[in-house]
């Protein structure tokens, strides 16, 4: 049987495609799904829950591959807000740039942005890994609880504001750190972690020059004495 299925969003709705991906695809033996003419449509491949490769051929809109489980979704273009939001497992790869909140509140899995990611990349992340080949915008990893954000380029203002237990690695310039975020020494375990994530993301870059940012944990308990001067 044919192990590749193709959909054209110029002829079908996102809803029809997602219904197939949710209900007909699992157990069908289809290993690869190609989606043509996304033309900025939102929520393509949202809510997947099976091991399949989905290729989106073009620019796509908001919430692409939202809440992804198991699937590998690749966007051959740019994406709008909140790609792979709340990702649980699997891999979501954007060959172009990503707008705001890429990988927001992700619990697991890997998000790869081959271009730049805009502001709040990795906001509220809860265990997923995000690798950005380019740079990230302001307030990235805001309130990030667990997981790893690797930035191969630069980071904008207020990186890691109100961090919990997530870790950030930045190779380029950090414009500024947010409240309770601090730069720490790179240990051998950090180098190994960055190396593994770069390999997983298929980004050919050595680990030299990366800086580690983590929480100073000074906001873990409420303190009235700081007068908003974090």
């Amino acid at each position, binding site marked *: 049987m044919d192990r590749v299925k193709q959909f054209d969003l110029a002829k079908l709705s996102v809803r029809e495609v997602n219904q197939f991906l949710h209900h007909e695809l699992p157990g069908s033996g289809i290993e690869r799904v190609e989606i043509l003419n996304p033309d900025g449509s939102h929520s393509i491949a949202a809510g997947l829950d099976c091991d399949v490769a989905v290729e989106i051929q073009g620019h796509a809109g908001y919430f692409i591959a939202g809440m992804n489980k198991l699937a590998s979704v690749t966007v051959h273009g740019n994406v709008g807000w909140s790609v792979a939001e709340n990702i649980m497992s699997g891999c979501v790869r954007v060959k172009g740039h990503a707008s705001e909140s890429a990988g927001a*509140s992700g619990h697991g899995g890997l998000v790869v942005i081959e271009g730049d990611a805009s502001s709040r990349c990795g906001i509220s992340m809860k265990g997923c890994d995000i690798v950005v080949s380019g740079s990230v915008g302001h307030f990235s990893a805001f309130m990030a609880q667990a997981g790893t954000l690797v930035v191969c380029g630069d980071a904008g203002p207020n990186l890691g504001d109100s961090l919990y237990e997530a870790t950030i690695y930045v190779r380029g310039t950090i414009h500024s750190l947010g409240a309770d975020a601090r730069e720490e020494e790179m240990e051998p375990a950090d180098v190994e972690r960055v190396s593994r994530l770069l390999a997983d993301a298929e980004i050919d870059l050595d680990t030299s020059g990366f800086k580690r940012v983590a929480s100073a944990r000074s906001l873990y308990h409420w303190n009235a004495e700081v007068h908003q001067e974090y």
Partner: protein
Amino acid sequence: MSGPIHREESASIDRRAIGYIREAAEYGLYDIRGMGAKRRVPSFDDLVFLTASASRYPLEGYREKCDSKTVLGTRVAKKPVELEIPITIAGMSFGSLSANVKEALGRAATEMGTSTTTGDGGMTPEERQSSKTLVYQCLPSRYGFNPDDLRKADAIEIVLGQGAKPGGGGMLLGQKVSARVAEMRTLPEGIDQRSACRHPDWTGPDDLKIKIEELREITDWQVPIYVKLGATRVRDDVKLAVKAGADVVVIDGMQGGTAATQQVFIEHTGIPTLAALPLAVEALEDMNVVGEVQLIISGGIRTGADVAKALALGADAVSIGQGVLVALGCNHDSYFQDGRDVDATDDYAKLGTAPGYCHHCHTGQCPVGITTQDAVLEQRLTPEIGAKRLKNYLQVLSMELTTLARACGKSNVHHLEREDLVALTVEAAAMAKVPLAGTQWIPGLQQK
């Protein structure tokens, strides 16, 4: 020399204000507490029904049927929520409440044919198992939020705010962040947990529309999507929620409770439930979606009379939080354990309070075992006892509701209407937009 002691208290710097200022000066901290607004505000108590007499025909109170079935989410969803009564259980988290309490809520709601709601921190297996109809909240923190639980939900409630703290995020102080709570929320145990006040993946009503569509895609357009708002700019906010695609709008007035927030929020933000409800109804009327988008009102609903008045003013259902906790035993002077009532007044005293006055949910030291994660305290309320009390309470509310509806000549509680009500005070008349009793006067309404 001695003389009479003068006791003319200042109206502005009264003993209450003096106490507040002294405490602030002493500790440099503001008050954090649970429950809702304590100040007196115009409420459903200020309305009365014009029940049937010569000009209206009543239904016999005990024999003629009065339907209370309620359907929510008829706009888009393939499976609207169908309830036996228009009284739902408000979202309250595992974390703020014990697992026993969450299970009790589910059991009682199921027995009465109504819904219960998750809260910040996600869905526990106990509450899913015990709740026939469970509404899954999508909150800014996204603690424990995942697609598996999303697909198990009977409805989704996107929370933009709540009446006790519109514009503010959540708070769970370290003493309640137990190992299980911490694991569900992916946080270190024992930290003071802050929930975000804004959603991480969208901002503004145009984005909300796309977010709602995403959740519909993930759940295959099966279940209704509610949008919950704290009551502030109600008319505008309801319109934006409807425009964004909400199936159900939930408005939480300023009397709504919380497990913990700053007192300044609880007492000084938002508008009373009585004022919020007519504004929400007007917004639905303006958009011509009455009957298409359902309206749930919450914030200080306690009695069957409150429920009846809310329905008469245009709500499709009500949602109750604090009343539910009180039914379980909140602020009672004892708890029931090992077959006997055990006095809890000493435990209230340790918190610096007494039964009837307690708002110490934030401490996690609930003397009656409701708002706690303490392994000993939570044994003070079993799911069985809690469910029985809550079922009784919901049953009374339902009976009072249908009693009033029958007396107004209605065979269906949803037939109660604004014309059945008058107000006892000018303020209530203006807010509820019903006439002051004995007059045709509705303050603020243009006379024709």
